[in-house]
Each structure stands twice: as C-alpha cells, then as structure tokens.
C-alpha cells in the first residue's frame, strides 16, 4: 500500500530483552517521526528525522532507546533492556516536509507489551 507501514503490529517480550520496531514511510517523505502512546494518553514525541539525521531526539526517555534511519527511508526504533514501563503503542509518521508546514501521515502502530 501507499501508507506508512509499521512492523510488527504486535510484539510481546520479556523484561530485559532487546526489541526492534520498524517503520517504512511513504515514498519520498523526507521527515520521519516516532511517537509513543500509552493507554488513555496522547502521543508523546520521541524523535524526528529529516533525511538520515536525527533533527531532534529530545523525546527519547533514556539511553536504552535509540533510532536509526541509515538511508533516509526505513527507520528502526531500538529498545535495549526493556522494562514493563516501556509497554505502549509506538507510532511512526512521515511527512513530505516538516510537521510545521504539512500534515503527518501515521502508521497503525506497533503495540509493545513487556511482561
């Protein structure tokens, strides 16, 4: 399809394990965003890429979280030593420019459950 694709849609892991979440943005979109949404809350900003570089990573909660976008397209969010508090829906969005001037196109999310 032509939309933002996120895999896996659901991930269940055990505390302490390593997790990777993948985002495939809309072709040609230079801006890519990761958000985290807990139940009953609004999306919380994690990191924003413009091309290959992280333009703003101020939302990453600690150094267990890391994201890459090596070729300016697909992005991977990596979480080390997962904790139960990391359980949430992780949302990816892309935009042809930045969010200031245009809408964000969101994927359906990856639901992470840490047991």
């Amino acid at each position, binding site marked *: 399809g032509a*939309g*933002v694709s996120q895999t896996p849609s659901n991930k269940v892991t055990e505390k302490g394990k390593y997790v990777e979440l993948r985002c495939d943005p809309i072709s040609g979109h230079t*801006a890519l*965003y990761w*958000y985290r949404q807990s139940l*009953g*809350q*609004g*999306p*919380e*900003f994690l990191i*924003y890429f*413009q091309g290959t570089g992280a*333009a*703003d990573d*101020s*939302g990453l909660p600690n150094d267990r979280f890391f994201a890459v976008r090596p070729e300016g397209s697909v992005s991977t969010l990596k979480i080390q030593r997962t904790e139960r508090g990391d359980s949430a829906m992780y*949302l990816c*969005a892309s*935009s042809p420019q*930045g*969010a*200031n*001037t245009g*809408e*964000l*196109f*969101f*994927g*359906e*999310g990856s639901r992470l459950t840490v047991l």
Partner: protein
Amino acid sequence: AQSVAQPEDQVNVAEGNPLTVKCTYSVSGNPYLFWYVQYPNRGLQFLLKYITGDNLVKGSYGFEAEFNKSQTSFHLKKPSALVSDSALYFCAVSGSNQGGKLIFGQGTELSVKP
C-alpha cells in the same frame, strides 16, 4: 515549554446537533495548530491545521476550527454531528522555532448518539 490542554475527556452529542471539542495551547512564538482524529484500530488521521491567515480553518469531513490568539484556543467544531464522527480527537501544537516537533493533547473522546 509547549503544551496543549484538552479539558474534556469525553464529549457526548446527539446526531444532528452542533459539536465543539475544546483545545487551549501554550507555545513560544507563533503557533502552528492541528487537529487529528483516531478511529478504533486505525492510525491517526489529519483533520485540519492553522499556520497563518484566516482564523477560521476548514478541514476534512465538514470539521472546522477557530484560532483565537487572545484566548490561546483552537476549538474544533462541526455544525451537525454524525454518528460516524464518534472517535478520539487530538489537538496538537508546534512552535515556529521547533523544527517540526508536534506536541499532542491528551485527547477527547467524542460520542455521537442517534
């Protein structure tokens, strides 16, 4: 620091009646304001935005929003609600010096009854 407040967790409206979902914001510099909608088991969808210009902006599905600078508000409105409008609505803001980072409110659940 930027922030968005949606004071109502839930709004209940009868079909055919007008609806308002409230949003207030705090941002340094000129605000860029957005509304997004989230249907069950679907991704967030863009509804409308205010960047500059006319304070009343029109968006998808008959929705509109009014930017009020003095009240720092950006309430979402629709003249006649449909049952299919029932969903979770999020207000979001970005500052002109923020490089594209959107800050979202907590969300308001809209329920439209027949």
